């Protein structure tokens, strides 16, 4: 109902569209007699999801390990870079262009080289995740740190605070909302990074599973793996949103009366 709290009106329409599309897909595969190995109907994908759940979860765990490690390292790298860039002209001039250039490197070309250097293990995948994830975090954080009201910093100075205290008390908290914006983008693309890393060469992970299943024409399993990675991306995105909600209580206060 329109008054339902769990399903407010602005959630109903997207769900309806999703349901209609799924239903249309199911119907189309049936009506046009599309072979299952070309396009499995949603029911077959769901079936594969349940049937292969142990297999899928095992590979999901591998992918999520790469994503988790990659995201953590990305945050670390981005924080160090951003603080360096905003506190030193020299670092800004020398490092910032390299940071931007790193995004021009085609990852599909880089991944095989990483494979040669680091083998089939965890490392090359984590590196690919870091490559796609640190950038949005770093750029947003730099903007956030730069956008800090100068008078807040002057306030800390006039109270006898050190530059380090100004960073801790003013700059970092003021930049947190931008940091979370960057982190949200990073979380959303992180899974893709891990999948690309796995496609190039691996022995486990959802990306590996997709390639192997496709080569064996287990198309329903491919779709199940795709669905699972999409769910993982969305879950990561929401997790960051939740972290933000917990970490920035004052943002909520701005919208409510005491």
């Amino acid at each position, binding site marked *: 109902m329109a008054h339902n709290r769990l399903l407010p009106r602005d959630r109903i329409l997207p769900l309806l569209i999703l349901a209609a599309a799924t239903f249309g897909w199911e119907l189309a595969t049936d009506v046009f007699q599309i072979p299952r190995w070309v396009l499995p109907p949603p029911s077959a994908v769901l079936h594969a999801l349940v049937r292969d759940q142990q297999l899928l979860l095992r590979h999901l765990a591998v992918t999520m390990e790469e994503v988790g490690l990659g995201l953590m390292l990305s945050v670390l790298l981005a924080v160090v870079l951003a603080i360096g860039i905003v506190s030193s002209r020299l670092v800004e001039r020398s490092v910032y262009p390299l940071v931007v250039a790193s995004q021009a490197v085609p990852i599909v070309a880089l991944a095989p080289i990483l494979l040669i250097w680091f083998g089939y293990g965890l490392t090359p995948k984590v590196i690919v995740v870091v490559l796609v994830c640190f950038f949005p975090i770093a750029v947003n954080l730099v903007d956030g740190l730069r956008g800090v*009201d100068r*008078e*807040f910093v*002057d*306030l*800390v*100075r*006039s*109270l*006898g*605070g050190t530059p380090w*205290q100004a960073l801790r*008390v*003013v700059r970092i*908290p*003021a930049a*947190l909302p931008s940091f979370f914006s960057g982190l949200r983008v990073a979380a959303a693309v992180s899974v893709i990074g891990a999948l690309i890393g796995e496609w190039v060469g691996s022995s486990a992970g959802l990306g590996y599973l997709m390639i192997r299943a496709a080569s064996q024409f287990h198309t329903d399993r491919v779709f199940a793996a795709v669905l699972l990675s999409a769910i993982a991306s969305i879950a990561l995105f929401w997790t960051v949103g939740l972290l933000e909600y917990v970490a*920035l*209580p*004052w943002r909520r*206060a*701005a919208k*409510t*009366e*005491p």
Partner: protein
Amino acid sequence: MKSPSPLWRVELRHVTKSFYRGRQPLSVLGPLDLRVADREFVALVGPSGCGKSTLLNLIAGIEQPTSGEVWLDGELAPERLGRVAYMHQRDLLLPWRTVLENALLPLELRGIPRREAVARALPWFERFGLAEFTQAYPAQLSGGMRQRVAFLRTLLADRPLLLLDEPFGALDALTRASLQEWLLALWEELDRTVILVTHDVEEALILSDRVFVLSPRPGTIVCELIVELPRPRSYAMVTDPRFVQLKAEILAHLRARTTLEVPLHGT
């Protein structure tokens, strides 16, 4: 009030300040000499943009003068950040901190343990009518409350010299009058030196021992008036002939030098 050898809390010697707009230097302040004695309450009035906030920034040490010297407590003070308590024109409450955390900032920056800081500050929240709001965020406060928090923070910096830049600027007349009387009572018991910047001539006269009128940019001192009204002061004095006379004098000075580019609106 009167020490044998006059030890000035603040002394400005021939101070000037220019900013650069592109390559063009823009002279904003001075040359200006100013001396304020211990426990004196001094007000600065002047047209908008004449450099009043710049002057306070110079005294606080946020800016350095282009030429001239700033002395504090009888010595030249080239590095003076942290030596005076400064209430900026904007309240500058950190939106991510609660009222309590905002007010405690000066104590925190000096490394005073939180427990002790809270103990020291709590009685003041009562006095400031903020006791119920210690856990609120600045966005949840009214304008008058925000200014009181900013004021409390300045007070907790615990410095003998207070610089107040239009502390009641953004308020309606009623709230402002009550906060002025409240500041008056507070100052009389606090033993601090105050330099108050204001647009409000009555506020200047009610509160202070001396009033300086500044010229339009670049701000220089046009005249100095000694306010010989007895203390404790109250708003009843606005009808006192001496008060009326002083007010007329200040307004005449301001009008004589204020061209039409500065509208005579409210504040």
